[in-house]
């Protein structure tokens, strides 16, 4: 649970969403499991430790920027963002795989139908996942709103 909370907190900071929004998708544990299965426990432990540290630092934004610029953790962190926004894993860069190892799970894949529905990009643009969670008859005629933006 503590690991999951670290993962949720780091994910929130990286995605710009609240931790409750992430928990509300039901995907926190799912994505953490997928991440561990794909890049291994050690990398995830280092990522979360770096995240914990960044979040309590005096300038979390700067610290997170540094984390994302890290050779090893940066590409993983960026993939976590993409995972949350799309519900899909995208393969790590070839350079990362060459240096840190290639997992058979490191392929382009939607984690599950539920994860696709939970993609944050749809919330970010004030829409709904294409093909799911239809907002109701005539909703498309309403003026657009972008919750939580600006």
């Amino acid at each position, binding site marked *: 649970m503590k690991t999951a909370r670290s993962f949720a907190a780091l994910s929130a900071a990286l995605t710009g969403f609240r931790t409750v929004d992430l928990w509300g998708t039901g995907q926190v544990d799912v994505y953490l499991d997928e991440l561990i299965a794909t890049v291994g426990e050690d990398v995830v432990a280092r990522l979360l430790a770096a995240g914990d540290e960044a979040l309590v630092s005096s300038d979390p934004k700067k610290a997170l920027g540094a984390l994302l610029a890290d050779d090893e953790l940066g590409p993983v962190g960026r993939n976590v963002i993409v995972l949350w926004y799309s519900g899909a894993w995208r393969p790590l860069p070839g350079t990362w795989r060459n240096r840190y190892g290639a997992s058979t799970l490191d392929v382009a894949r939607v984690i599950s139908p539920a994860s696709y529905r939970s993609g944050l990009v749809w919330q970010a643009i004030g829409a709904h996942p294409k093909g799911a969670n239809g907002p109701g008859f005539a909703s498309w005629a309403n003026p657009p*709103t972008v919750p939580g933006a600006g």
Partner: protein
Amino acid sequence: MTPDELRDHLQTAIEIEWSTIPPYLCALWSIPEGRNELAATCVRDVVMEEMLHVTLACNLLNAIGGSPRFTPRPGKPVPAPDYPSFLPHSNDAFVVDLRAFSREALETFRKIEQPAAIGAPPESDDYQTIAQFYEAVAAALAALSPGIFVAGPTPQVDGAFYYGGGGEAFPIHDLPTASEALDVIIFQGEGIDLSIWDPDHDVFGEQEELAHYFRFDELYQERRYVQGDTPSSGPSGDPILIDYAAIYPMRPNPKAESYPPGSELRALTEECNATYSKLLTELEAGFTGTPSALVGGVQTMIELRYQAIALMQVPLDDGTGQTAGPAFQWRARSDRQAGVE
């Protein structure tokens, strides 16, 4: 009963019907999609029928010159209950909670849908069962007809704006249409003519669909009713497998105030409350002359569902393993938080 009293009673009818909806929705939404489908279908069907009952009760109230109310007025509190709550105007025999789908919830649902015992007198207040209440309304309506029905067009909601299950909504303008509406409400709730409420009578081969009470009883007993079963025999059909472990473990009767001010969970709960309150406003507009407001109402109901399901997946901090949930608290427009961080 005077016409004013009858109108008051129909407003009460709306409140009774409405008061069952948040508890049913909590149970329904706590069942993750694709799991426990039989249970989800059962609760969804009942909710849709309750929505139809609300619609018909509103049409009826409009037909006799009343004006359905879903939001508070000066001196009149919000018609929707603050849970946990007794059913409005009931004899306070049992409390209704907001709960995840569970045996406790089913026990309450069975009480809500309890058929009237044979010979029970119509009761318009302190009723024991909802059927008793409607019997009283029906009697008053018959006594005051036809004078009670308003001439000319009254706001009515029909199949154009009410759809999606539960049956057909239809306009009400006279005693026959009013009686038809009451029959639908009573029949769907109890399923059987009161005169044959005999605990040993086989009532399960005669209907296409079980009455609400028995549908919940099936789930409670985890066994289907089949032809030949009687209310006293209980269900003797195939077992129903219910995986209670798959249900979102929502802590009963969530409230925004349970979370610290400024916390994310409080904000999320208030967002959900705001959506619920918007729904009540739209329902009131829809049932008082602007049926097209129900187009927005359907959108709001969908939004409410996703917000509620999100809440039900947020674990509480206290180590109980329970999650937050929708509070269904009324918030005046000025108190509603915009959906921003």
